[in-house]
C-alpha cells in the first residue's frame, strides 16, 4: 500500500492538536481545527480544547451548534473552545480530563459517569465515548479543512499516528486505539508522547541534532503539560557508525501540570485580595486564574520586571466601577511557581504517597504531592532499578553506578508549555546538577515545544511509511503478568498471595509472537474465564514464563482479563480445554493476548476489561 500522507494526532488531556505531513512534498504543518466559538459561531484554532459540554435543551436557540460537516441529526454535545469557556461557569455540564478517566484503574471507562458527580437530567457520557467524540471531531475537521483548501484525502491513504502518555498501561492504550477505531480511523499506530517530542526535536534541529548528542548520552524527556507530567529516558549508543536510540524507561501516570501552577498563583492572589478586604466570586476567580497565568508568562519572559499588574474585571456591565486591581510580584511568583513546584530537594526525597489514606474519594487520582522535583527523583530512582534488572539494559547504559541511587541523565529535552519559561528550565537543570555532584546536565537546544507532540507524531508516521529517518527502539514499555491463585490450605485471617506469571517481557518488539511453554490452563467451553492482570515498569529482566511469588507486593494491577470460550466444534460444551498463553505484539505495536489450544492451532482472544471496585 502506498501512503500519501501521515497524520499526527496529539489527543491531549487539556488540548488536542493535529499535524499533517504531505508525503509528496515532505512538508509538515499543523492543521487548524474548525470548532464552535459561540452559539452560531464557528472558527479555526490551532488546538481543540479537550472539553465537552452537555447543554440544557432550553439553554441555546435550536441548531446553534451546527458544524460545517454536520449532517443535520448531529450530536447534542459541544466540543472545543466554547465548551471549555462556557462550561467553566456551568461545571455540572462540563467534561474535562476524559483522557485521565480513560487511564483510571478504579472506574469503568465505558460507564456513563461524566460529568463526574453531576446531577443533570440529560444522558451522561463515558470517558471512552468522550475520547471518541474528540477524535471524530478531529477527523471530520481535518477532512473539512483540507477540502476547503482544495485537497481531498482518503483516510485509507494515510498513516495515522496517535500519541498516548508513556505512562499509559496496556488497558488505557487499548481503549485509546479502540476509540480511534470507533471514530473512523483505521490501523492507527500509538506513539508515546515523550518519544513524539524527541522526533519533533530531531526534525526541527535538522542534521544539527546529531552534534548535540552522542554515544553514552542518556536523554531525559521531561514533558509537563497542562494537567499531566510524563517522563522518559532515551539511551544513545553507536553501532557501525550510526547512532542508535532506545527508550529505556517510562514514568508513572502523574496528574500534575501547568494548570496546578496557575491555580496556586490564583489562590495566593485571592488570599491577598481577601486580606485587603475584597472578596471575589467564582467567575472572577476564573478570570484571576487567567490573569495570573498571563502575568506569570510576562514575568518569566522579562527578567527586568519586578511585578506584573493584574486586573480582575467586574462581573456586571460596569467595568470601571467594578474592576479589581492588584499585582503579581516576582518574589511571589518565584516562591509559588519555582520553590513550590521545583524546589531543590534531594534525590532521596520522594513524593508522599496518598495511597495509605484509607478511605479515598473515588475520582481522578490527582498527585497528592505537588512537588515536581520529588516526582522526578522517584522516576530516576525507579529507572535505575529497571535498568539494573536486565543485563541488556545494564550494558546499554554502561553499567550505572548504583551507589548514587538514581540513573543520572546527561541531557534534557523539555516539552510542554510550562517550559517556555526559561527560569523553570534553569531550575530543573540546577536540580539535576545538584543530584549529580554539581556536574552540569545539558539542555537540548533548538526546540519549539508548541504543538511539538502532534508534529513529532506526524514525522514518525512519515519515517515509518517511507523507511527514512530515525526510529527510537522502544517495544513494550512494561512487562505484563497474569495472576495465578496459589493453591494452599485455607487459613483464617490469611489471604494466600497471588503469584504472577510473566507473559510479556519489557521491550517485546513490534511484530513478535511468543507462546508461554510449561504453563497450561484449563478453560471450559461455553464459559467466561477471568484473570487478574498486572504490570511493572521497573522489571526489565523478567522473561516470559517466569513466576513471581507475590504479584500484589511487586506489581501494579492493570485491569482484569476476560476470555470467552464459545462452544466450538470438536470441543464439547463443559469440557476443559488445555490452553497455553500466546502473546502477540502486532506490527502496529498493539499488544494482544490469546489462549492457544495446546494440541491444535485453535486460539481465543483475551479481552481487556477494566477493573472496577
Amino acid at each position, binding site marked *: 500500500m502506498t501512503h500519501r500522507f501521515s497524520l499526527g494526532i496529539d489527543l491531549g488531556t487539556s488540548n488536542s492538536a493535529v499535524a499533517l505531513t504531505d508525503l509528496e512534498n515532505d512538508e509538515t504543518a499543523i492543521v487548524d481545527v474548525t470548532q464552535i466559538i459561540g452559539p452560531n*459561531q464557528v*472558527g479555526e484554532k490551532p488546538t481543540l480544547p479537550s472539553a465537552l459540554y452537555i447543554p440544557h435543551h432550553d439553554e441555546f436557540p435550536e441548531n446553534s451548534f*451546527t458544524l460545517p460537516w454536520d449532517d443535520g441529526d448531529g450530536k447534542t454535545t459541544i466540543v472545543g473552545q466554547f465548551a471549555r469557556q462556557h462550561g467553566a461557569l456551568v461545571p455540572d455540564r462540563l467534561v474535562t480530563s476524559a483522557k485521565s478517566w480513560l487511564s483510571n484503574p478504579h472506574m469503568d471507562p465505558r460507564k456513563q459517569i461524566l460529568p463526574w458527580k453531576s446531577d443533570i437530567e440529560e444522558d451522561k457520557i463515558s470517558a471512552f465515548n468522550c475520547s471518541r467524540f474528540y477524535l471524530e471531531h478531529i477527523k471530520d475537521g481535518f477532512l473539512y479543512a483540507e477540502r476547503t*483548501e482544495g485537497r481531498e484525502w482518503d483516510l485509507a491513504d494515510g498513516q495515522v499516528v496517535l500519541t498516548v502518555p508513556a505512562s499509559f498501561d496496556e488497558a488505557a492504550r487499548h481503549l485509546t486505539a479502540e476509540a480511534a477505531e470507533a471514530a473512523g480511523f483505521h490501523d492507527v499506530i500509538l506513539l508515546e508522547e515523550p518519544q513524539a517530542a524527541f522526533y519533533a526535536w530531531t526534525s526541527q534541529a535538522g542534521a544539527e541534532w546529531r552534534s548535540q548528542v552522542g554515544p553514552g548520552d542518556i536523554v531525559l524527556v521531561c514533558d509537563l503539560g497542562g494537567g499531566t507530567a510524563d517522563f522518559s529516558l532515551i539511551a544513545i549508543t553507536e553501532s557501525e557508525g550510526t547512532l542508535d536510540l532506545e527508550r529505556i524507561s517510562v514514568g508513572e501516570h502523574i496528574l500534575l501540570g501547568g494548570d496546578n501552577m496557575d491555580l496556586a498563583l490564583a489562590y495566593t492572589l485571592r488570599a491577598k485580595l481577601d486580606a485587603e478586604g475584597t472578596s471575589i466570586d467564582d467567575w472572577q476567580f476564573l478570570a484571576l486564574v487567567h490573569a495570573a497565568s498571563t502575568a506569570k508568562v510576562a514575568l518569566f519572559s522579562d527578567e527586568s520586571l519586578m511585578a506584573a499588574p493584574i*486586573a480582575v474585571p467586574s*462581573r456586571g456591565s460596569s467595568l*470601571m466601577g467594578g474592576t479589581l486591581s492588584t499585582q503579581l510580584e516576582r518574589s511571589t511568583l518565584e516562591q509559588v511557581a519555582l520553590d513550590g513546584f521545583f524546589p531543590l530537594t534531594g534525590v532521596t526525597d520522594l513524593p508522599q504517597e496518598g495511597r495509605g489514606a484509607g478511605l479515598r474519594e473515588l475520582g481522578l487520582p490527582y498527585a497528592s504531592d505537588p512537588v515536581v522535583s520529588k516526582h522526578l527523583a522517584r522516576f530516576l530512582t525507579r529507572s535505575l532499578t529497571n535498568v539494573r534488572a536486565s543485563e541488556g539494559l545494564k550494558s546499554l547504559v554502561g553499567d550505572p553506578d548504583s551507589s548514587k541511587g538514581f540513573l543520572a541523565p546527561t541531557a534534557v529535552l523539555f516539552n510542554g508549555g510550562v517550559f517556555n519559561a526559561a527560569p523553570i528550565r534553569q531550575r530543573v537543570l540546577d536540580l539535576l546538577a545538584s543530584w549529580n555532584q554539581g556536574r552540569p546536565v545539558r539542555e537540548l537546544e533548538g526546540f519549539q515545544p508548541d504543538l511539538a507532540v502532534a508534529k513529532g507524531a506526524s514525522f514518525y508516521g512519515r519515517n515509518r511509511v517511507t523507511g527514512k529517518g530515525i526510529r527510537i527502539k522502544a517495544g513494550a514499555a512494561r512487562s505484563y503478568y497474569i495472576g495465578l491463585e496459589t493453591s494452599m490450605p485455607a487459613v483464617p485471617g490469611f489471604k494466600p498471595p497471588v503469584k504472577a506469571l510473566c507473559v510479556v517481557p519489557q521491550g517485546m518488539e513490534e511484530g513478535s509472537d511468543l507462546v508461554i511453554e510449561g504453563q497450561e490452563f484449563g478453560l471450559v467451553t461455553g464459559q467466561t474465564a477471568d484473570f487478574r492482570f498486572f504490570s511493572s515498569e521497573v522489571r526489565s529482566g523478567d522473561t516470559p514464563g517466569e513466576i513471581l511469588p507475590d504479584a500484589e507486593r511487586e506489581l501494579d494491577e492493570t485491569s482484569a482479563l476476560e476470555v470467552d470460550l464459545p462452544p466450538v466444534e470438536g470441543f464439547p460444551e463443559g469440557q476443559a480445554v488445555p490452553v497455553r498463553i500466546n502473546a502477540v505484539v502486532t506490527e502496529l505495536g498493539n499488544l494482544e493476548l490469546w489462549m492457544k489450544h495446546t494440541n491444535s492451532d485453535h486460539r481465543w482472544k483475551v479481552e481487556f476489561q477494566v477493573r472496577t471496585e
Partner: protein
Amino acid sequence: MRAVSIIAAFVLLALTTLLISIGLNYVPQAEAYEFHVKVAIVAIAAALLIAILFNRRPAAETQDVKAEAAKPVPIPVAANQAEAEVVSFLATLQEKGRLVDFLMDDVTAYTDAQVGAAARVVHAGCKAALKEHFAIRHIRDEAEGASVSVPAGYAADEYRLVGKISGEPPFSGRLVHAGWKIDSVKLPRVLKTSDDRLPAIAPAEVELK
C-alpha cells in the same frame, strides 16, 4: 461587511493606543488631559458605531480578502448576514475585552485609577482578539522620527505624504506615523441568523442557584 469589520478593528486599534497612553501613564498631571481623553473616547465610540451602522455592503464584495476566499461559508446567506457578522465581531471584542461595557459606561463618575484598571482589561482582551484574528503590522519598520525613503511605485493608499510634495518619487522625509496594515484576516464565521433581528452582543447573564 468584512471591510466594515476591518474598519472597526482600525478604530479599535486607535482606541487601544489611546488607552495605553491614559492607562499606563497615569500620573497626577494627566488630569489636565482628562477632558480631551473623554472627548476622544466618546468620539471614537461614535465613529465605531457609525462605521458599523452605516457601512452596509453586500456580502459578495468581501471575497477579495484572501483568507476568506480560501474558506467559503457553506451556509446560505441571510438578508442581514453582513450586519450579523459585524455584531459578532463586536461581541468578540466585548467578550474578550469588555469593549462595549467600557464605552457605554459614563466615564465621568470614576477616578483615573478606576479608569486605568478597566483600561488594562480592555487593552489585554482587545489586543489578544486583534492579534488572533488579524495578521497586523506596521507599514514601515523604521522608528518614528527617522528619515525614510518612499520608493517609486509605492502603494498610494499606504502612504500619506504631507508637507512639500513635488518632483518624482523616491521621496525622502521624516516618518511621523509608522502606519498599520493587515496581511490576512481570520474571523469566526456566523452560521445562521434570524431574518428579523440581529444576534446579541452579550447575552444577559442570570445565575441560577
